[in-house]
């Protein structure tokens, strides 16, 4: 099953840009759910969140008189006859239909009047009212939520659902926890803002939050409780709220109180009495110690009142070192009994003759009880604080690490490790939609054995859904809940930057708290990813700019360089054609020769340019294949020889075969360029050496000439050929600069190095190194 509810299908269709026409019965609207139930006495389970209804562009009311509807029922136009009778007996009684009709009409009226108001008002919700509804594990909380949703809607005011985690929350039964989860889910469906806070004093926390967030109306549920001793000492929540703040308080009565449920703050919850030998030893030990000390005091003649103190101290210690209330209370009672037994006349009996002692016992018992209760409370608070601290610490830690982490891969790794250790669950991180063939990065939690299911097609489909719909899905959600993991999007400004999957396979589903924390982590990761994306983009732009400027420089340089020989060719050829008769043979031949030379120069130029396109085509790196160095060298030398007759090139290659990964055509071009350069800058016939050597993990190519050498001021920029800073006209060098610059680009693309220097005694040495394993060469 893809989605749990049909309205989720509608959302998906809308997201895909498909118009949806649909019908809904009024009893299925979420916020009206309890109203309908209270009228018809029949709970409606299937509901549609209000925002779906509100999102509708156009609402058309299909109104029909109850009598007519019932007639259609009888005629079997709505359900099959047998179902129709059942439906008519239960839900669709005439009375119910009339009421439902009324609700429908008023709902539509509300909508229309809201739309009319909107015509002249801004669409912003009015800010002067803010509703806050406080919820707990009581079933009536759902009613409070719905009531607030309806009211907030009527006022067009924003509203918040607040759940306060108290030390007692840890003792909730599974059923109560589930109810809280359901309530929060309901609130989410009704589009509320959800806030979870933890604190000991519920009223104070609510008041504090209300003050900070500008809440104007607080909604609480109230159960009618039996008057109890405790209730006498305790102020009601609403009274406290009224004392603490001046916001309006609405109280929603809990009519379901027929079904008894545990009071919110039980004094001693049964789960608390946990028997442990360790705590028993501690209790008995402390009491014996207290008794011994008191016996000592008695011997030394120190008064009874000190013995009482010693016992109270021991109760305090017991409450401190044991878990729960149980041992503290037992210790209180025991201490009173032992005190009575050992130190009250008559000694070694449980009777007390002396007047006033019963009062002493009572006070002692009360003090012991109160201190033990207080101790437990302090401990619980400390524990909460520690948990909170730990969480904040963890987030801070992650943020700190993310700030210094660079690169998508590292961010992914860090996040995965972090979540895996925090939740003891395996994590999968998709930085791109798996539909594009991307597999996520998995971090296996140590407690899980097999996580291969995370890579299955089904799981990837869920991740894909999350990418497309920008909503969480998978285990524990309403969408694609058959999945083995819980998937949540990492959102930044409405864009999905990644999807996190947390394995729930064969485990408990993630609770609301975990999810909220995960959302916080996700927002941190989103920031990190966004930062990474921006810096990547910037780098990309820089690379593009550099490429662009190189291209435009090249174009400028060659268009000038090309013009010269082309002018010469076209001039010479037209001279021949126009002066055919008057021209002597010598001039004719000279002109034709010029044409040939210039066109050969052009050919060389174009070949260089082709090399450049070859580098640019292979986006980042050139296509390399192992080539025998001697073969490449031989071909280059042969080509240079055929172009320059009378050149004197000496070639030396190593005795052993040297295979180097390279793009042979490009390296050939480099050798040809360097050899031509050497020929140009030395006298005809002077020897030029080409030496190839193996050096470490690189192959060194050296082209040595005996010519004029390189002017010192040009050495640093010799490979910059067409750098914009070069003011010298490129006429003089006739494009050789371009040749050298192309050499450098080619060698760079091979992860190699190229350098030029002057030889002692005249002449230049050009040397380039190619790595034998294709990796970057370090050092010389």
């Amino acid at each position, binding site marked *: 099953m893809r989605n749990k509810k049909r309205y989720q299908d509608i959302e998906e269709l809308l997201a895909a840009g498909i118009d949806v026409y649909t019908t809904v019965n009024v009893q299925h609207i979420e916020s009206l759910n309890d109203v309908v139930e209270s009228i018809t006495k029949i709970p409606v389970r299937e509901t549609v969140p209000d925002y779906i209804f509100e999102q509708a562009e156009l609402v058309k009311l299909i109104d029909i008189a109850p009598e007519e509807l019932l007639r259609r029922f009888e005629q079997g136009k709505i359900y099959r006859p047998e179902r129709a009778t059942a439906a008519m007996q239960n839900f669709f009684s005439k009375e119910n239909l009339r009421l439902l009709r009324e609700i429908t009409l008023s709902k539509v009226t509300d909508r229309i009047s809201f739309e009319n108001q909107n015509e002249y008002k801004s669409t912003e919700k009015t800010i002067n009212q803010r509703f806050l509804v406080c919820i707990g594990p009581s079933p009536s909380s759902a009613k409070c939520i719905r009531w607030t949703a309806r009211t907030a809607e009527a006022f067009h005011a924003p509203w918040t659902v607040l759940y306060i985690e108290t030390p007692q929350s840890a003792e909730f039964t599974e059923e109560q926890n589930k109810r809280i989860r359901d309530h929060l889910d309901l609130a989410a469906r009704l589009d509320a803002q959800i806030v979870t806070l933890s604190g000991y004093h519920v009223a104070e926390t609510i008041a504090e939050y209300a003050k900070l967030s500008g809440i104007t109306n607080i909604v609480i549920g109230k159960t009618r409780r039996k008057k109890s001793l405790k209730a006498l000492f305790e102020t009601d929540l609403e009274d406290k709220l009224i004392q603490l703040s001046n916001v309006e308080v609405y109280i929603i009565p809990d009519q379901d109180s027929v079904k008894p449920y545990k009071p919110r703050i039980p004094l001693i919850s049964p789960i608390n009495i946990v028997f442990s030998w360790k705590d028993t030893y501690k209790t008995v030990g402390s009491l014996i110690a207290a008794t011994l000390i008191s016996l000592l005091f008695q011997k030394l003649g120190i008064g009874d009142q000190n013995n009482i103190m010693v016992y109270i101290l021991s109760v305090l210690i017991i409450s401190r070192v044991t878990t729960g209330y149980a041992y503290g209370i037992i210790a209180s009672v025991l201490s009173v009994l032992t005190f009575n037994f050992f130190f009250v006349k008559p000694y070694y009996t449980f009777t007390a003759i002396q007047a006033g002692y019963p009062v002493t016992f009572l006070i002692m018992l009360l003090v012991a009880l109160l201190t033990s209760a207080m101790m437990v409370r302090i401990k619980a608070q400390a524990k909460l604080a520690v948990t909170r601290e730990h969480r904040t610490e963890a987030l801070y830690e992650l943020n700190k690490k993310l700030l210094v982490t660079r690169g998508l891969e590292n961010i992914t790794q860090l996040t995965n490790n972090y979540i895996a250790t925090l939740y003891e669950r395996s994590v999968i991180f998709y930085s791109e939609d798996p539909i594009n063939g991307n597999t996520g990065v998995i971090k296996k939690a140590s407690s899980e054995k097999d996580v291969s299911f995370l890579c299955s097609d089904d799981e990837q489909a869920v991740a894909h859904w999350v990418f497309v719909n920008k909503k969480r899905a998978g285990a524990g959600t309403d969408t694609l809940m058959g999945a083995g993991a819980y998937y949540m999007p990492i959102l930044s400004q409405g864009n999905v930057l990644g999807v996190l999957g947390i394995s729930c396979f064969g485990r408990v589903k993630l609770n609301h708290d975990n999810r909220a924390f995960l959302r916080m982590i996700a927002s941190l990761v989103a920031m990190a990813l966004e930062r990474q994306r921006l810096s990547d983009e910037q780098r990309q732009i820089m690379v593009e700019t550099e490429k662009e400027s190189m291209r435009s420089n090249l174009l400028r340089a060659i268009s000038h360089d090309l013009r010269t020989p082309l002018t010469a060719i076209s001039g010479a050829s037209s001279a021949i054609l126009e002066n055919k008769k008057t021209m002597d043979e010598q001039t004719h031949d000279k002109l034709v020769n010029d044409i040939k030379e210039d066109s050969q120069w052009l*050919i060389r130029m174009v*070949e260089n340019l*082709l090399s450049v396109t*070859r580098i640019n085509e292979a986006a980042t790196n050139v296509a390399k*294949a*192992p*080539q*025998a160095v*001697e*073969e*490449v*060298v*031989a*071909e280059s*030398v*042969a080509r240079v020889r*055929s172009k320059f007759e009378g050149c004197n090139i000496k*070639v*030396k*290659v190593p*005795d052993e*075969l040297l*295979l180097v990964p390279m793009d*042979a*055509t490009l390296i*050939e071009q480099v050798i040809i360029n360097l050899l031509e350069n050497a020929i140009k800058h030395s006298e005809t016939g002077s020897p030029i050496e*080409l030496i*190839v050597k193996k050096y470490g993990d690189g192959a060194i190519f050296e082209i040595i000439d005996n010519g004029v050498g390189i002017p010192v001021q040009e050495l640093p920029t010799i490979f910059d050929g067409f750098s914009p800073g070069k003011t010298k006209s490129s006429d003089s060098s006739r494009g050789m600069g371009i040749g050298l610059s192309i050499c450098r680009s080619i060698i760079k693309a091979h992860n190699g190095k190229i350098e030029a220097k002057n030889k002692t005694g005249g002449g230049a040495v050009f040397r380039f190194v190619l790595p034998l394993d294709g990796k970057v060469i370090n050092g010389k």
Partner: protein
Amino acid sequence: MENKPIILIVEDEKGISNFISAILTSNDYSVIKCTKGSEAVSMTASYCPELILLDLGLPDIDGIEVLRSIREWSDVPVIVVTARNNEAEKVEAFDLGADDYITKPFGTMELLARIRTAIRHKQNNSYNPLQTDKIKIGGLVIDAVKRNISLDEKVIHLTPIEYKILLLLAKNAGRVLTLDFICKEIWGPYTNEQNALRVNMANIRRKIEENPAEPKYILTEVGVGYRMVEGI
């Protein structure tokens, strides 16, 4: 009318086909020209040329396709003319049965030499399937019967594999043999021994060439294959 060999030039650039035909006519060939791939196929069928110069970049269909369809029924020598410096395309052309290739820009002498070689090989293959027992190239003599090789009267010792490679190249002297082709001939199909071939070739060169970086006998067509010269 004398019986000049007919050469079909398939080339869409007028300038180039003009100068090629000028060279060929003055070298005693008879020339027919066409500019489209489809024409090339039909003209091959009707004129039965001695040789085809086929440009790979044609306006209607790719030259490779023309070669494919001609090779379906004819083994006329085809020299591929390509402007692209693309080894993969050259290798593909050879695989489809091209006899040689020549890259633009090319020299007149080079073109004529290639044409002569291609025509001669065609005649050899069709009329003398059994080649001469002794192949002589410059100072290199290969005796296929005695299975020995000498260079400038001195006996050269080759391993069996090296001998096979050298013999294969010598039998096809003047023609380019692709790396793949040589590997299949020597090591059989379904293997890729290109690196082994390079190593063997390096060894052969060290035995028969003065300087392996300036070979005289076996030339490298980088990225494509090897060619044994016909004579020095």
